């Protein structure tokens, strides 16, 4: 296992988190977008509440434009993708130009969609780029620790989002198990006690979503 600096460890972890955030929130956005076709503005409220982000949107069109593409909106998909890009471009020597290129392509795809009447079609390209990025991380990054730090970021983010969205217990349990396996393969610092508690919470009869969110967010110490 080669030495990875504190800075790069942090960037790898957050690259994993932001890429997952983009991927999952686009998929969730798709469900709200579908409801908006019938004019269901409540779906925006529900969407924002589930992600714990402020509902600053004045209409369905405003939601589509600003939640997806507004670079000034810190919760927008574009802002999260830009953060993934900011991390990826500084990790070229760790993850390789090919991996970086898929995050770059996702940025181009996202920017090309502004003002598009059918953004959901184009967003599929963004999702495809993220999937290609993940596939490549597995395929070409030689250092297992580097690969696993990205994956831990991804798993932490997914679990955090799933718990916020109060997804069924089976989904939460599966993500906790995947995280437990992955984190043990890295040199990331975390408390085993916290990981064990997460497993217990996920397996409990009544899923304690809020506790899971708190615990998973503070799990990795960088």
């Amino acid at each position, binding site marked *: 296992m080669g030495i*990875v600096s504190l800075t790069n460890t942090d960037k790898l972890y957050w690259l994993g988190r932001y890429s997952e955030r983009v991927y999952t929130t686009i998929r969730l956005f798709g469900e709200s977008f579908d409801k908006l076709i019938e004019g269901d503005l409540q779906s925006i409220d529900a969407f924002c509440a589930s992600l714990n982000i402020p509902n600053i949107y004045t209409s369905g069109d405003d939601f589509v434009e600003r939640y997806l593409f507004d670079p000034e909106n810190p919760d927008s998909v574009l802002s999260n993708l830009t953060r993934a890009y900011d991390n990826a471009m500084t990790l070229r020597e760790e993850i390789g130009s090919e991996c970086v290129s898929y995050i770059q392509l996702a940025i181009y795809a996202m920017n090309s969609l502004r003002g598009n009447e059918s953004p959901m079609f184009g967003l599929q390209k963004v999702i495809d780029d993220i999937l290609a990025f993940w596939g490549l991380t597995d395929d070409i990054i030689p250092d297992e620790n580097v690969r696993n730090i990205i994956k831990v970021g991804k798993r932490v983010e997914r679990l955090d989002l799933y718990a916020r969205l109060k997804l069924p217990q089976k989904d939460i349990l599966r993500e906790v198990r995947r995280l437990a396996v992955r984190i043990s393969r890295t040199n990331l610092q975390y408390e085993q006690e916290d990981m064990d508690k997460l497993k217990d919470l996920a397996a409990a009869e009544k899923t304690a979503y809020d506790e899971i969110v708190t615990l998973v967010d503070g799990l990795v110490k960088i």
Partner: protein
Amino acid sequence: MPDTRELTKHTEDINELLARYGVKFGLYKNGVFKEQLFPFDAIPRVISAADFAELERGLKQRVMALNCFIADIYGEKKIIRDKVVPEEFVFDSPGYLAQCEGTKPPKGIWSHISGIDLVQAKDGSWFILEDNLRVPSGASYPMIARELCRRASPRTFQTNGVAENRDYAALLRSAMDHVNTGGCTVILTPGRYNAAYFEHSYLAEKTGAHLVTGSELTVEDGFLWFNGYDGRKERVGTVYRRISDDYLDPMSFRADSLIGIPHIYEVFRQGNVALMNAPGNGVADDKGIYYFVPRMIKYYLGEEPVLNNAPTYLPYYEKDMQYVLEKFDSLVLKDVAEAGGYGVVFGSKMTKEQKADFIALLRKEPRRFIAQEVIDFRDLDIMENGEAVPRKADLRAFVLMGEEPMVWKSGLTRFSRNPDSFIVNSSQGGGFKDTWVLSH
């Protein structure tokens, strides 16, 4: 001339791929950082084997002499004592650093990577425009462009006998290893908001070096260490630093530097780490010192210069001042402290008032400027809206110093996109080409 029609059909595709790989440069405009793509033109600059052999000989000679000069200036100063170079041109130069006096870098090498800018006149002769011995950038662009050109049109490269240029990383690595004092190799970057950040990260990837910022390195017990997240650390033997002398070490240079590494210069002076390029090189690539390089070649190597400087005048000398005033309209004037195409003015393009103001400044600060004849460059064709049009272009050749100087069989050809401009710098809207050195 090689037939490149099949290759140039793919210019747009190649530019798309360059965008995909993030081949960009950063630019500050009105205080705001922006990343810009570096436009690529697929018609290469072509240099024949015979022409390159001459260039290679001249470039090696020049870089050897410049290395001797820097070592002499921070050592015995024989060239000053022998009155070959006036001392005010050395000690008044902003690139001269008193802190470097008495320094002996590993293997005696000061300029490990030299970027020498040349232009080719219409008669085919080459002129040196300037020497860049501090942190010359640009090699990564033709490297990655070649990779993509070969994908676009393999047949072009099957038939034309073009020397490989993707070996730059191997040459760089061998230069890094040659001076390594024991330990790993790192590329030190000021960070992602540096104009050449793409290059820093790409060269780190291709040479297998760690890309680091100052906060990831520390000095302890007289050595430099690369610190890992998990508490492990590794000794550093070579630092290819892409930050300027001023900011390298707040203990030795600018005290307000937040991007440097405290005490790194002390470690270097003790011979416990190699810094590429060595601090203090600015004394030799000052635009004023440029005038004296042909004399240095004769002085240190006892040889006639193979490559010529552009005809240059130093207003510091009264005779040259008179010439500059007489021929003002036909000369280009350069502020020796500026770089990147800034501080360059053409006498012919000034208004009467501007000219009067400039001459007053020239008389007041003659050491600050050099004047050069405007060389009628050989234009190179670029593709614009499907048509080949001629544009001004220069060449940055790279010389790497290992056991022996090595001239990279390629280079960065930069061109002006503006038909009326001689300024080719990327920061001023220029584009780039690959440079082919032929095997015949």
